[in-house]
């Protein structure tokens, strides 16, 4: 199976008046056809920036690709011109965004917003494009598609708008779909529907999906592989099983621990991670999580940990995994003390 996406040592910074904000500080991952990769992390960890950089959606004056490669299929994204990107966006890769309310043009009929992409990339005639748009609305389970296509976004509910976004994203059969927090702005019941829809689509079309979220529940139901991001770097990658059952990074563990349990034992306090993520204007020299890590060691504060292999493709960037690390420390780690 060919690789749909290869991201190699990606560094993205924003040039602001206050200085250079290093939003993405060396990210590596790959994606195979039909695979679902979930990128998890707190707000501000750089996951959205990474995703948008794959499509070069960030306005390039403040944003800047400092170094790294992004290979989408045969396309070299980093060096692609804007003209080339216009052909790639929507066709090879497409994106659905977090807030369906603001992501649709309020003064344009929904059908037209769909046919726009279709006519641009597939060069269909007006009637054919219209038919295709209605067909797409059917695929995402919108009732009365022919009528709905002539309506405006404000006449749709939140969940339906997100379906329209999905329809738009799939209209040109992209190889990769990036879903940036697709369910965050929706009710829990609608969330489930949308996730089911995405699952169906993945099975039918074999599209690779990058699912960006901070909701681990969503990850569990759909992801093949998971990448945990923190402060602009990926700290752990592995299959969903690896991450949930064999977390090998203090941050991942802390995240899992902070999930509210379903038991009604009121004596158990909610666990949170003390502290806040580091300021990326002045990124820390060592591991980004050092100041909040209960197992922090001297080396963690001064040197960036490389990726250590836990097992097979399960990797984690933590000094605890270094062969010289005394086992006592590793025990301390799992105790959480």
């Amino acid at each position, binding site marked *: 199976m060919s690789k749909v996406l290869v991201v190699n040592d990606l560094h993205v910074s924003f040039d602001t008046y206050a200085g250079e904000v290093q939003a993405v500080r060396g990210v590596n991952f790959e994606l195979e056809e039909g695979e679902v990769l979930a990128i998890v992390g707190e707000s501000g960890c750089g996951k959205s920036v990474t995703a948008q950089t794959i499509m070069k959606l960030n306005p390039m004056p403040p944003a800047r690709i400092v170094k790294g490669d992004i290979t989408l299929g045969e396309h070299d994204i980093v060096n692609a011109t804007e003209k080339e990107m216009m052909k790639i*966006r929507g066709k090879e890769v497409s994106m659905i965004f977090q807030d369906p309310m603001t992501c649709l043009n309020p003064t344009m009929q929904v059908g037209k917003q769909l046919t726009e992409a279709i006519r641009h990339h597939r060069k269909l005639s007006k009637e054919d494009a219209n038919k295709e748009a209605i067909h797409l609305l059917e695929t995402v389970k919108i009732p009365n598609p022919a009528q709905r296509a002539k309506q405006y976004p404000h006449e749709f509910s939140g969940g339906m708008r997100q379906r329209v976004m999905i329809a738009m994203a799939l209209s040109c059969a992209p190889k990769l779909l990036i879903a940036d927090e697709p369910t965050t702005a929706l009710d829990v019941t609608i969330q489930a529907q949308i996730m089911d829809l995405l699952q169906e689509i993945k099975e039918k079309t074999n599209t690779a999906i990058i699912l960006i979220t901070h909701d681990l529940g969503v990850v569990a139901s759909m992801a093949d592989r998971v990448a945990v991001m923190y402060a602009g770097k990926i700290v752990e990658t592995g299959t969903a099983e690896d991450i949930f059952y064999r977390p090998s990074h203090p941050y991942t563990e802390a995240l899992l621990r902070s999930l509210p349990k379903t038991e009604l034992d009121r004596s158990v306090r909610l666990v949170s991670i003390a502290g806040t993520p580091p300021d990326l204007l002045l990124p820390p020299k060592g591991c980004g999580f050092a100041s909040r890590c209960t197992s922090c060691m001297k080396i963690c504060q001064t040197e960036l940990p490389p990726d250590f292999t836990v097992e097979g493709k399960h990797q984690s960037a933590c000094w605890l995994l270094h062969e010289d690390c005394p086992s006592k420390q590793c025990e301390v780690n799992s105790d959480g003390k």
Partner: protein
Amino acid sequence: MTLVKYIGKRIFYALLTLFALVALTFFMMRLLPGDPFIGQKAIPEATRKALDAKYGLDKSVLQQFLMYIGNILKGDLGISMHYNRPITDIIAQAFPYSFNLGMRALIFATIAGVLLGIIASVKRGTKWDTISMMFAIIGVSVPSFIIGALFQYFFGLKLYQWTGIKFFPITGWNSEMSKILPAFALSFGSLATVSRLMRTSMLDVLGQDYIKTAKSKGLSQKKIIWKHAVRNAIMPVVTVLGPIAATVLTGAFVVENIFSIPGMGKFFVLSIQVQDYTMISGITLFYGAFLVLANLIVDLLYGLIDPRVKLTELKE
């Protein structure tokens, strides 16, 4: 509310405003010092009685008011004290010039202003942006009559003196060329306002999420701007067209005077100078009504182009 309800509401308010305007004019006139007929030659008693009866000056205030309204609805605005002609006649003669001038200025200001605003926003931060906005802020800060006088001087007189060719006549409204300077001078301030507003609106819209969506579909920058951004950005500009029409209209008074255009401005300024009260009130009433109508048209226009008005609550 539905479109119909919206239209109905707007029309109702327009009528209410018109009524307030008429009442205001009427009562203002009554407060004026002196007798409307003083200043003319001495009038014989009998004629005086007849005039009183005609204008109902011997009846109660309320009856006079009703008569006034009645007259207006019949199209009778009274007689100019100074010219001794029916005011409606004077208006009918002079208004076409003002209208022509005003419309040219308004259309030019709107179109050029919108284009300038779009350019400034798309080329934000570059020299085009800076130049356009400098131009705009000067337009907003320099009163129209000064601009009119300057244009007249430099483009009319000086240009002629330097080149010997009469490019722009400095007065009058006969040839096509003579219409350019006054229309442009009149449009200047509004052009500036519209371009500033359009620029802000475009910048606002370009930061919206649906623009990102459009980009993610692979659409070209040009398409994104014209098919998505402009349509949304132009709406605040439409709402402001009403007050801009008012500005253009009032500016017309002054510009007509400077360029000696036989429009209503000339009559109006003259009537203020000679204190021709009936004419003043007649013209103000006419202008007021015209502006209420213009505002109504703009409101209706907005209702038509904003799809959200047709079906949802209109946020005020």
